[in-house]
């Protein structure tokens, strides 16, 4: 298991390759979040990601532990960037290794849904109208909430 919060970019291929050492692994599911050039109707030139050092790592570890208690998964990797980013930059990487795709896909989606609502990161966007803090989305709360009522279908 590996959880990193860093300013530097990451190499998806290298991250996934590092997870393939275990011969029992049959599935690697991964998600990569990328900076878009538009959000809430405004052009986005770039954004700055702030976090709560110390709590961020603890929150991510807790989310990964919850996933490990729900699914029979073998390895998890989370990388989240902070600092200044521009459109097309990678923001976040979550990968889950398991014996089969079902638990790997489900755990990967669960970790992302909880990361969006529980991990202390905040985005500030640079738009033509000036800088603005990104507002949390009700749809992200709903996505995390559905895991408490059973697995989404």
């Amino acid at each position, binding site marked *: 298991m590996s959880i990193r919060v860093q300013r530097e970019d990451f190499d998806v291929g290298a991250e996934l390759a590092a997870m393939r050492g275990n011969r029992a692994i049959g599935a690697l599911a991964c998600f990569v979040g990328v900076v878009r050039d538009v959000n809430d109707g405004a052009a986005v030139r770039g954004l700055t990601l702030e976090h709560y050092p*110390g709590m961020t790592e603890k929150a991510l570890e807790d989310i990964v532990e919850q996933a490990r208690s729900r699914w029979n998964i073998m390895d998890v990797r989370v990388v989240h960037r902070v600092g200044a980013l521009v459109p097309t930059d990678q923001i976040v990487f979550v990968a889950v290794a398991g014996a089969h795709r079902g638990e790997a896909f489900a755990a990967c989606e669960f970790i992302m849904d909880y990361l*969006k609502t*529980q991990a202390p990161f905040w985005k500030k966007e640079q738009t033509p109208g000036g800088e603005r803090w990104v507002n949390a989305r009700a749809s992200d709360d709903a996505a995390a909430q559905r895991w408490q009522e059973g697995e989404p279908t």
Partner: protein
Amino acid sequence: MDSSDLHKGLAQAGTALVTVLYFARLREALGRDAEQLSLPAGVATVGALRDVLLARGGAWAVELASAKPVRVAVNQTMARLDTGIRPGDEIAFFPPVTGG
């Protein structure tokens, strides 16, 4: 000295001080990212501490108003208004998170 050193120092001193941290929009609006606060008598929950900060007026009254979607953590774990606080604790106020 970072906030965790500060936290340890306060716990050792056995004072009634807590460390309060502010992030993102709150940090900017309140003009500070951290402060040490002496807990007034009877202030034993996050909600009671928020009321103390609200009473400062100005930006504090605006940003910490109950209608605002403020989140809180105690000792780096998500908490609620009824979560208890004690001297030496690290209490953070921030907007709903927007990572990922």
